[in-house]
């Protein structure tokens, strides 16, 4: 528990670093929103579609854009002139969102070295640390992809072995999945932290350190407890985000934007807390 408090303290003292984790998502989403705005502007030349879409009527609006149906029934006819550019721009907005996941992963790899250095009390400038550790962090991110590919179905399988039924049972299984995934995630972040703290750029060694952290006698109990607690926090955050998806559209645009940004900031802080906890566990071992 002391480890967890120290991790929380470290994260709070460096809370500005959460902003660094928040900004890439903000930039990407703003870029995507710009394309969406241009698309909506084109679309609205043919009616108040953006209002209908934003207020939840997107499926009905989508039905009305089945212009291929018109072409099939009336060969030679064309869709409304602004429909094609609107479709291109809205598709671009979605594509930016999808590609954003990769960019976000790159940004995290870039920032993680700097954040871990700062959490360790290193004197080097933040951006210099980021640049210094970018290569190993990127390689490490690629290295752990297969671990996730194996771990996610295993965690799902284990979670769904829980003898629970109904909606509450489903939620319990999702929670168990979140906790198990949080544990795996924590082990891997341990490896990431060990590279920086031990000044060792070997990603294979870091992965071994991470996966082994859970069985090392000195760290097993605090590590498991801490990662499970953090996994629980992540699960609560995920549930809150899902609830926000459900509830926020009923709000007007200003409070909706505020909720979205607060949720994004909370997510960024949990990532910072995870790195801080990894740092403390490596130190403790």
């Amino acid at each position, binding site marked *: 528990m002391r480890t967890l408090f120290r991790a929380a303290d470290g994260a709070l003292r460096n809370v500005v670093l959460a902003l660094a984790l928040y900004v890439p998502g903000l930039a990407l989403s703003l870029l995507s929103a710009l394309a969406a705005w241009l698309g909506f502007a084109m679309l609205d030349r043919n009616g*108040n579609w953006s*209002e209908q879409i934003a207020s939840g009527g997107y499926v*009905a609006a989508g039905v009305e854009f089945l212009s291929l149906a018109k072409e099939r*029934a009336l060969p030679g006819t064309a869709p409304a002139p602004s429909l094609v550019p609107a479709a291109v721009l809205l598709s671009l907005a979605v594509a930016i969102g999808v590609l954003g996941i990769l960019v976000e992963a790159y940004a995290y790899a870039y920032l993680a070295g700097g954040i871990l250095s700062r959490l360790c009390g290193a004197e080097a400038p933040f951006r210099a640390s980021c640049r210094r550790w970018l290569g190993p962090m990127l390689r490490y991110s690629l290295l752990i992809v297969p671990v996730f590919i194996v771990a996610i179905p295993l965690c799902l399988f284990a979670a769904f072995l829980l003898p629970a039924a109904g909606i509450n049972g489903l939620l319990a299984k999702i929670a168990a999945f979140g906790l198990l995934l949080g544990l795996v995630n924590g082990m891997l972040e341990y490896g990431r932290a060990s590279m920086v703290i031990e000044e060792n750029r070997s990603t294979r060694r870091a992965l071994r350190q991470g996966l082994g952290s859970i069985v090392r006698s000195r760290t097993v109990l605090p590590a498991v407890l801490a990662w499970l607690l953090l996994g629980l926090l992540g699960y609560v955050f995920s549930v809150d985000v899902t609830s926000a998806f459900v509830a926020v559209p009923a709000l007007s645009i200003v409070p909706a934007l505020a*909720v979205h940004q607060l*949720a994004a900031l909370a997510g*960024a802080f949990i990532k910072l807390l995870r790195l801080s906890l990894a740092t403390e566990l490596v130190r403790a071992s």
Partner: protein
Amino acid sequence: MTILVLALAMLARLPSPARAQTPPGEPRTDIASYALEATLDAAAKQIRGSGRITFINTGPDSLSEIWIRLYLNAFRSADTSWMREAAGGFRESVFDSRFPGWIRVEGLVDARTGDALTLPSGGDTGETIVQVPLAMPLPAGQKLELTVRWTSQLPKVFARTGFAGNFIFAGQWYPKLAAYDRGRWDTEPWHANSEFFADYGSYDLTLTVPAAYVTGANGVRGSETENADGTTTTAYHSERVTDVAWTAWPSFQRLVRTVIAVDKSVDIELLLPPGEVESADRHFTAARIALDSFSHWYGVYPWAKLTVVAPPPEAAGAGGMEYPGLVTTGTSLRLPFGLTEGIRDVEVTTVHEIAHQWFPMQVQSNESAEAWLDEGFADYLTIRALGRTKSPDASIVDLPFGRLGYASVQRALFLGISARAPVALPSWQYPSFYAYGATVYGKGSLALLTLERQYGDERFTAALRAYADRWRWRHPATADLQTSLESSLGQSLDSFFRGFIRGDWVVNYRVGSIEGTKAVIEREGEAPIPVDIRIDLADGGDPIERHWDGQDRRLDLDTGGRTIAAVSVDPENKLLLELDRSDNVLQLNPSPGPMIAAAGRWQGMLHMILQLVGLAG
């Protein structure tokens, strides 16, 4: 509105189809009556039946034959003509050939003479309809009485009927007379896309099942007797109906509430799986709204009881079907985060099936030959009834982050599949189940909705009420509907029915251009439907409203010197049969507020998603 109606009248320049017969005299509701005794063999999933069938020859001629339907033979094997049409599947169900269904008539006697009547293959035929010669002709106006014995093997639940574990739903389970209408037998075999058609009569069912079973059937529940052999016998009686179906399951939870629908008391009997009891209020509410709405609009519900059966999920193939006084529905979807109430799947199915209590259970059109007269009607009624309780654009999905109206579902079917398909085709002539569904349900309901919006809710409801009153307890066809509507509305609907119902016409309007004070509207497609036009002006003055009869391909608009800001065709969304609504509006300077808000919401959601994904991995 008046101009619209006048313009619709102008469409009536084309020759009429053959006019329909007018209904002759008082309707008869005692043509085909049944007194059936059925005993469930719970282990073998068989029904052993016996009974008496009476039939009155209402035609002008003496009859030397009768036709009997043996529906369950459709499931005799994977090689029946029905099964070949269905390609071994029906909706979401796949036929399990290890558990076939069949019906074997073991005795059929003409009580007038005592003669045993001869069925093909001694009654063990593979056909779904058989011709049975009468030893003595049945003169016009005379009654035929038959005694019958048979055995029905229920299939594993498939296409509305069968068993799943110890759940039983018996639909189309007994030997049934084909309909004799307008002087001829309906001899069309049962097809995979077809439903049913029968004459009215009274039904007495005496049902014997193991004592642990809870039963339900259409009709008033009568005496219940516990037998010495561990079975229970329950009697059901119904009048002015065309069918009887029943269900039995030890696990049924039976709930009853009485509702008042237009001053008439109706018992709603719910038969639910145990896990569905917590959704009982949803079922009751949907049933009450449907009964009340349809009773107001199309005449009082005529029976004392309505049974609503929700089969358990493993017997979902028995759900979503209608019988007179009994409907089967589905179980509600369970979702976390309070989403369950926002998805109205139960309501849609229940209301749709209850709509059938009017069309075709009271207005018995031929569901097989002209399915749109019941399915198109039922979906149109569903759109209307659901729209009474929720905003029409959120009638089936009403969640904070998304909504959907039932009419949009029909629009999707229409645009995606059935834009050019004739609605009034025999069901077996559609190339696929999807084409059948999209046309009969989708385009059929949109056609009625278009007429409603063209003529106004009150006027069109009165016209459909007049049709229902005129044809209640009879067998109308599409031509009869057209004649009745024309009579009520005082306008010819010839072009509408010829183009959209019997034909393959389509229509699309588009705003072609706006240049200063002038604009161009274009019509694409064959159907010249009248349409409203609204012109918004750049000076902020009152919009100019116009009506166009749509007879020409192009309409040139000139505001006489006032600059145009936007032009909208069909601004009130009346033409549900239009092909493309995305070109109905052209506005030169759309308001920036909504598009900024939409982009803002997109940004917020995407940012949260990115954080969530980053957190997971």
